[in-house]
């Protein structure tokens, strides 16, 4: 099981995503934005960061990268694709996911351990969670406000395409407290919080049990491994 992580100019969390994939039990494959080759991977992660300095719009220039032609083609054929933070922004810019991300309503960058509720456990990336499970993973963004037209929002809600929702505090003004969404097929998921930063005891969010022991993010990666192996 091989999971590709695409590095763009300005990616920050590509190595963290690779590490999360390794800890979940798959082989991470480093992919480069300038190539037209997915190296035969079974799933893809578009990592967080500030590709192209967030110039033009966050994720916009990266969504036009050479490798995105192959990413879009693979996603449309059903390959699991996870976009984290800047990767989520790229997925909306590439029209693989609906809606868009705008600057946080309070105007500031925010970094915190964020509580979420998993609303959709049918996607390739969330099948290992219990329905309605509450999790905590780090969040860090300046442009994480999820918006969509009233019609799109109603459809996303009505068809169960909201994957994770902010609990306790809406950190960026996202409509309906939406933290992440999926496409109709459930193979493409984008979210602003960072599951790859909560995958190893000692380096995750604090929990009631112990400091930095939170590993709720690992389930995103173990879910996709089980899904791909089950389909093989």
């Amino acid at each position, binding site marked *: 099981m091989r999971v590709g992580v695409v590095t763009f100019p300005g990616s920050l969390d590509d190595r963290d995503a690779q590490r999360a994939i390794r800890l979940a039990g798959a082989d991470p494959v480093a992919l480069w934005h300038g190539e037209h080759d997915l190296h035969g991977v079974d799933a893809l992660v578009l990592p967080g960061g500030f590709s192209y300095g967030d110039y033009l719009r966050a994720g916009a220039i990266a969504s036009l990268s050479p490798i995105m032609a192959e990413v879009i083609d693979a996603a449309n054929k059903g390959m699991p694709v996870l976009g984290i933070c800047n990767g989520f922004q790229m997925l909306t810019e590439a029209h693989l996911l609906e809606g*868009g991300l705008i600057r946080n309503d309070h105007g500031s960058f925010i970094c915190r351990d964020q509580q979420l509720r998993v609303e959709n456990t049918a996607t390739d990336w969330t099948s290992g969670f219990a329905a309605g499970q509450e999790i905590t993973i780090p969040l860090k963004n300046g442009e994480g406000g999820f918006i969509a037209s009233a019609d799109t929002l109603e459809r996303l809600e009505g068809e169960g395409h909201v994957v994770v929702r902010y609990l306790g505090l809406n950190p960026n003004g996202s409509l309906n407290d939406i933290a992440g969404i999926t496409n109709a097929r459930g193979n493409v998921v984008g979210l602003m919080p960072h599951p790859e930063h909560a995958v190893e005891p000692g380096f995750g969010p604090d929990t009631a049990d112990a400091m930095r022991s939170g590993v709720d993010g690992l389930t995103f990666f173990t879910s996709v491994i089980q899904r791909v192996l089950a389909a093989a």
Partner: protein
Amino acid sequence: MPTIVVEVMPKAELLDPQGKAVAGALGRLGKSRFTGVRLGKRFEITVAGHIDDAVLAEIQELADTVLSNSVIEDVVGIHVLEAPAGETH
């Protein structure tokens, strides 16, 4: 070189946190008659050769698909810059 200007603004119904921050600063300077600021983008695109209808149509297409994201922004103006600043003819 002939230049085409494309102007993009955040959608009117959306919160514009950058504009709001600028408006707040104006208020702190005592400029209370200026009650709102919206902040957008202006692209100046230089063109090799003449600007004709085909070029303008191409720019319109790029403005809608690359320079703006219709989910969050509107293209509010496209026009040819007649005398670019600093350029002598």
